[in-house]
């Protein structure tokens, strides 16, 4: 037991160090803004959209798959939930609609992958393309504003409890539930088996196909929740939401130590990975670096973070 805990700690040590280093840089370069509580809130709010998606992505990748469609599915869910027709039913229906659309898209992709035995990369790429197209059609390529009578959705971003906007609590809830499901339930444990050795999982009596399908549905569900958050933050639904989120989410998961080949990984690692990315962006914002330099610096920081993490991993052997 203690051994196990120690291994886990070491596994994330590098990430924590990287995060602390970034924070130190922030405190030094922007002493009066970085450490303020409002800045920290802003970091968390920024992280929450991709954060929710990252939780779903962690499941999919541990289960041996990949989901490129997350950003597009989130966009589709946001558009569907903000059509005038949906909006006429009020904010609750809008939220439910977003979640259902996300889950539905995930189910379709998951079905093709598990029962159609197609490669996840291709299926979710096709889903990305098709979902964006559908979102554009549905919205006629326009940005759809949330009507004043449905401002309850927007209030998720403006209402604060204990200083934090409600959407940060949604994010936290998703992380906690995700962690519990992954570590404390049969579903989570089987996810590791399905990703680590699908043949062995099948012979151990796990319904690998159904499980795989559920993983994509779960990822879609997270996209639906992320859609609610992005709707709250931007007050809109739009086919342009979530562009390239897939890359950010996958990168966060992998920096967090999850193997792209499946069978291994943690939610905490993914969230730490994501926070590193968000912190980098925040630091750049505060320091007003120009884009080109930012990009170069970002590349270097990613490499350094991974090197740090690898040290952490090695120290345990």
């Amino acid at each position: 037991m203690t051994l196990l805990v120690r291994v886990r700690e070491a596994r994330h040590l590098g990430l924590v160090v990287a995060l602390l280093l970034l924070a130190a840089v922030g405190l030094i370069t922007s002493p009066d803004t970085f450490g303020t509580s409002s800045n920290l809130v802003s970091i968390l709010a920024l992280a929450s959209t991709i954060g929710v998606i990252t939780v779903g992505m962690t499941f999919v990748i541990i289960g041996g798959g990949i989901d490129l469609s997350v950003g597009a599915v989130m966009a589709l869910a946001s558009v569907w939930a903000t059509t005038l027709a949906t909006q006429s039913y009020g904010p609750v229906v809008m939220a439910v609609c977003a979640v259902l659309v996300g889950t539905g898209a995930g189910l379709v992709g998951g079905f093709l992958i598990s029962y159609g035995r197609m490669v996840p990369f291709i299926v979710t790429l096709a889903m990305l393309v098709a979902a964006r197209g559908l979102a554009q059609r549905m919205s006629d390529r326009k940005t759809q504003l949330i009507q004043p009578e449905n401002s309850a959705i927007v209030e998720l971003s403006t209402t604060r409890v204990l200083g934090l906007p409600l959407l940060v609590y949604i994010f936290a809830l998703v992380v906690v539930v995700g962690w519990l499901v992954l570590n404390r339930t049969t579903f989570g444990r089987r996810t590791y088996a399905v990703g680590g050795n699908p043949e062995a999982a099948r012979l151990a009596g796990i319904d690998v196909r159904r499980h795989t399908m559920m993983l994509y549905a779960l990822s879609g569900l997270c996209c639906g929740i992320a859609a609610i958050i992005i709707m709250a933050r931007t007050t809109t639904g739009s086919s342009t939401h979530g562009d390239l989120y897939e890359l950010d989410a996958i990168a966060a998961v992998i920096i967090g130590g999850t193997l792209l080949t499946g069978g291994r990984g943690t939610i905490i690692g993914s969230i730490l990975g994501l926070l590193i990315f968000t912190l980098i962006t925040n630091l750049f914002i505060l320091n007003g670096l120009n884009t080109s330099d930012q990009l170069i610096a970002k590349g270097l920081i990613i490499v350094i973070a991974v090197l740090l993490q690898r040290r952490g991993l090695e120290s345990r052997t």
Partner: protein
Amino acid sequence: MSELLVMRGIVKQFPGVRALDGVDLDVRAGEVHCLLGQNGAGKSTLIKILAGVHQPDEGTITLGGEQVRFSGPVAAIRSGISTIYQELDLVDGLTIAENVFLGHEHARLGFTRRGEMNRAAAELLGRLGHGELRPATEVGRLPAAAKQVVSMARALSHRARLIVMDEPSAALAHDEVANLFRVVRELTGQGVAVVYISHRLEEIREIGDRVTVLKDGRTAAVGLPARETPTATVVSLMTGRNVEYVFPPRPEPGSHDGRPEVLRAEGLTLPGRFADVTLTVREGEIVGLAGLVGSGRSEIVETIYGARRPSAGRVLLDREPVRPGSTVRAVRLGMGLAPEERKSQALLMNETVGRNITIAGLGTFARLGWIDRRRERAEAARLVKALELRPPDPDRPVRTLSGGNQQKAVLGRWLTRHGDGVRSRRLLLLDEPTRGVDVGARAELYALIRRLADEGIGVLLVSSEVPEVLGLADRVLVLRDGTVIHESDARDLDEARVLDMIMEGSAL
């Protein structure tokens, strides 16, 4: 004869384990030197050091009178040592010929000479008695036994002066082993030394010249004469105690007759594999399937289990028809399968021993999907102890276990005690359950299997070792080319008769 290889005081430390703790090994040119030891004794580790895969922490290696130090596999190969590893080390996407010559291809200016390589590979395969294997076939499409042949061809391709074979016979059937021995004799006749590792003691007696015994990472005995040393002596050197290399007593013949059938398979057919197989297993009965490699035993077992879908026939468990093609149903109804290839079919290499054991019965430790981790851990710990896994630590990554101990973990998966409301195992399908398992553990496994049967579980056993089938099973079915050609009480058969039956008319 002069000593070709002298290893002295080899020490190898892995995190948390001292795998080798001062091992000595002397090998002479032209001899077959057998390396014996229990699972986890350090045999594979020792030969990996010899092959340059691991570097020793302490100790010296002298080859042909010169002290050597191998920085990597290439260095060992250059010095004339070639190795057949315990875990198959082939590349599925390449052809047989390309695998044989991987790393030392016939090439000119970087361009491979495929014709030449195919010819050379065909020659090596022919020498191994497998002229029927085409060098241009993709290795991924070959069955395990044929892969083993390719591994051997690869070892031969180096023209080495010392060839190390780590359990080469584990995946081979009886007649294939004979082939292997012919090649080994041919090699030693040319002055090549062979280091041979096996858990089958009768093989040692047949092919070996001298024996070195390892126990817990130390040398327990060096250079014993292979043919003269009594088995009991070898076994007690290995295990440190006296193990009766015997099978547990079985119930009287016919004592199962009146008991209900746990399993009934009727007219099972999978075109090209097996046809019209009918068999039954009664409560408390162990039924053995004997046959050559490729006779379709694994396929039959996998079909019963629902891992393959038959084209005709049906399977009844406790008289209820089982939906074909669903392992989920099979497990839920009380079947369990220990598949033949543990690495690819059974183990979750990233996980701990404990989690590997509990994965199949996870539902029984959980309520509404929520795992009761205390109960899970307790059960894993109990089984690790009951199966005498070494080291007895459920939290160890299963990857770091020796082959035989990994096999025990696979068996353990089906021995978890079941909680309330969940049906416990009714039928165990054991495909080569003792592959790579040492003598001591083997005796324990036999006793365990018999005990499970006595508790009322039905067991269907597949093994390439005929004595094992005959000694453990109550009833034996003999297979040839996918059809049952004989069925009788195990006591009415002897090894020679079974071999006669399975070989007769066989293409192999």
